[in-house]
């Protein structure tokens, strides 16, 4: 008998305090990867990119740097648009990525989507030849965030030591942050069925324009509304209600229907070019600044935020 093969995907959380610990925890990780001939990407917030670039010196030229505050603004697109796109570009190699999707400025509205993203990396990358190291700023993040990191990462690195997380439970995290999203007071709503899809789109576009959205961003929102409302008609019980309102410099649009979204990775898998359908939720994740989802037997709410 041989032992079962070890899971090739490695997903540690790195806890750090201050710049020196950050550099000590990440730079050797990058250098080891480069020395082993592994493609390396670093997707972290802008100021951290500068720290790593200068610490790496000449070696930085062989690393792909991505500003996570831009690419990962909406956590729902980090798996398809940052992590998978890099891993898939190197199908024959083991890849090494530093991904820092949670930073102290993330808001309470964003956080549930962030932690669900961290949890879903595990199933999205199961069986893949990859290491994704996720730094956590111990000095700036709350106890809750740090304790969630133990639940979303099978291993953690603390004080330079690797240890198995005693509380790894990614599915439970996805469920715990599947938080109710109540109808917002003052939001304007429109009930649609198959015949009202164009009207639902125009309903949202007109109101979003009044809230200050224009140009490409308004086009983006129209595309997103079309995808979500069409999903309700085709998969979500045949009808739904779309709501729109303005909130703190953003337009928020949400679609509620009676369907249940059973695939936690929906909208997070890159689509093969020859595939005809299945890009709707992916597009929603690509174009919106934040997407929150609540789903269950009682129905589904997809709430999208777009900056004006």
């Amino acid at each position, binding site marked *: 008998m041989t032992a079962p093969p070890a899971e090739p995907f490695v997903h540690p959380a790195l806890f750090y305090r201050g710049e020196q610990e950050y550099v000590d925890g990440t730079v050797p990780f990058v250098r080891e990867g480069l020395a082993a001939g592994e493609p390396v990407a670093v997707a972290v917030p802008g100021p951290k990119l500068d720290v790593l670039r200068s610490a790496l010196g000449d070696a930085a030229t062989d690393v792909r740097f991505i500003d996570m505050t831009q690419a990962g603004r909406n956590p729902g697109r980090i798996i398809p648009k940052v992590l998978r796109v890099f891993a898939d570009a190197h199908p024959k190699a083991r890849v090494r990525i530093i991904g820092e999707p949670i930073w102290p400025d993330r808001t309470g509205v964003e956080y549930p989507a962030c932690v669900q993203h961290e949890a879903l990396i595990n199933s999205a990358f199961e069986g893949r030849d990859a290491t994704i190291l996720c730094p956590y700023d111990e000095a700036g993040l709350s106890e809750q965030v740090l304790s969630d990191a133990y639940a979303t990462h099978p291993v953690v690195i603390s004080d330079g030591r690797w240890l198995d997380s005693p509380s790894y439970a990614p599915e439970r995290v996805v469920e715990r942050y599947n938080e109710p999203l109540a109808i917002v007071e003052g939001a304007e709503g429109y009930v649609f069925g198959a015949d009202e899809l*164009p009207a639902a789109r125009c309903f949202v576009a007109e109101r979003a324009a009044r809230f200050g959205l224009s140009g490409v961003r308004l086009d983006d929102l129209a595309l997103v509304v*079309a995808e979500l409302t069409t999903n309700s008609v085709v998969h979500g019980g045949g009808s739904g209600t779309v709501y729109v309102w303005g909130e703190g410099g953003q337009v928020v649009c949400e679609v509620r229907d009676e369907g249940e979204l059973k695939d936690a990775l929906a909208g997070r898998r890159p689509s093969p070019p020859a595939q005809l359908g299945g890009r709707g939720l992916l597009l929603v994740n690509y174009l919106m600044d934040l997407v929150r989802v609540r789903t269950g037997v009682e129905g589904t709410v997809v709430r999208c935020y777009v900056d004006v």
Partner: protein
Amino acid sequence: MDRAWEADPPDVSSARSTGTLQVRPLADRTGWQAAGEVSLATRTAWERALDRLALEDVEVCHLELSGVTFVDVAGVSALAVAVQGLPEGRRIMIEQPPAAVGRVLDMFWPDLPGVEVVAR
């Protein structure tokens, strides 16, 4: 009241749509002219037009979309899949589509050979 409401709402009447699609052959070149919108209700008519375009035996087929107000992602996907099925050397020229068509093509099919977009 929100400040944004004080100004006159922008004219978005051009974005209004009835959810229909008219497709007719172009008079002066091989291909089709479409008007209306490409969405769930008109997907079949759109895919039929793309199928017939793929059967034309010319190097370049034209799809004139200046009268189209909206194309959803499934509509752009059908277009991209049709283009990928073209025999080598053939291409489809998309004329004056809504701006989002080019953006969605770039997003999911960057550098797709066989399609050329002539912007509005």
